[in-house]
């Protein structure tokens, strides 16, 4: 039998040192998100819009909150309400932690969506949802910032029209850094998991 190069206590110490080192490195390591990690690939949350109470707001007003940004419009009867209903379920599953998060629903239909319509609309889904409106230029600027797009489709004789829009949900940490990209087909479990990571941790990483 070969003699041991390391006596057992020394080996344990070495393992401890390695794990401490790894632990130290972890602070700079990415959080183990289950959904698409966009850290460093998208700009920080920034916009100038009007909230559903008619108040002028900017991205900075939501620092300190984990933000779920979603584009849509109130005359959208299927996918937008479904997505907001899904986000409501996710918020419910977060329990009291959800108070640290906000759903920002940005209208891509400036012609029809007023703050008061948006107010009734978002509150039908979740008390932590905020409706944001702005002129076409401001909304387009925000949309382009996240490489998303929307197109007003040709309307019918009655003036009804649809708006095609990005289906993505952008998640920002408490410091306004873009962290996770979710699609409406993402599982509730994955979204809850990733939001836990952002809500449990501070905004420092």
């Amino acid at each position: 039998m070969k003699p041991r190069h390391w006596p057992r206590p020394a080996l344990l110490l070495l393992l401890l040192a390695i794990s401490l080192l790894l632990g130290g490195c972890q602070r700079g390591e990415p959080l183990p998100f289950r959904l698409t990690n966009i850290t460093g690939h998208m700009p920080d949350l920034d916009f100038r819009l009007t909230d559903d109470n008619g108040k002028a707001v900017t991205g900075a007003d939501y620092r300190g909150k984990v933000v779920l940004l979603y584009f849509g419009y109130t005359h959208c009867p299927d996918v937008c309400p479904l997505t907001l209903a899904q986000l409501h379920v996710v918020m419910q599953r977060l329990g009291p932690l959800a108070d640290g998060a906000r759903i920002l629903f940005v209208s891509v239909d400036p012609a029809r969506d007023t703050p008061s319509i948006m107010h009734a609309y978002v509150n039908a889904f979740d008390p932590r949802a905020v409706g944001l409106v702005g002129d076409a230029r401001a909304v387009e600027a925000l949309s382009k910032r996240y490489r998303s797009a929307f197109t007003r489709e040709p309307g019918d004789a009655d003036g009804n029209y649809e708006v095609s829009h990005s289906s993505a949900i952008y998640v920002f940490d408490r410091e306004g850094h873009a962290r996770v990209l979710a699609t409406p087909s993402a599982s509730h479990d994955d979204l809850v998991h990733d939001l836990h990571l952002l809500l449990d941790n501070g905004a420092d990483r």
Partner: protein
Amino acid sequence: MKLSRLSLLCAGLLLAGIAHAADADHIHASHAWIRVLPGALPAGAYVTLENDSGAPIALRGAGSTIYADVMLHQSSTAGGVSRMSMVDSLDVPAHGKAALAPAGYHFMLMQPKQPVKPGDTVTLTLQFADGSTLATDFIARPANALDAGDTHADHAMPGMDHGLMSHDH
């Protein structure tokens, strides 16, 4: 004689058509619900249709005494973009099912003549390509409901591919 046989066949088909004109006997509707949105915003209506006959039956649309306009629509997501389009019909396959479900096929209900509140029942008359109809009660559900409320909620977000479900017998 060839001609008379053909005319007999035509007469038979015509009679069959008339017999069907009233009720869509072979279609069964379940999980019928409406997602009610605030004010007079357009609402989505969903239903699962089952066809127990040996031939496909096409859903063409629906009528309502409450909503001035009902349209058969399909939502789709391609390249990360959600859009909605009108569809002429949806086939309910022979001995199969077709679902109008969130993120897929749905009725878009517009211009309610009176407010519809969660808990209300709204009758939509489904119209099929063979001229038959089926009066179906839809339960009005809150905006943030995920389904008709008659089944256990599915925890996974519905995908985009469950509009049509056929099964072979």
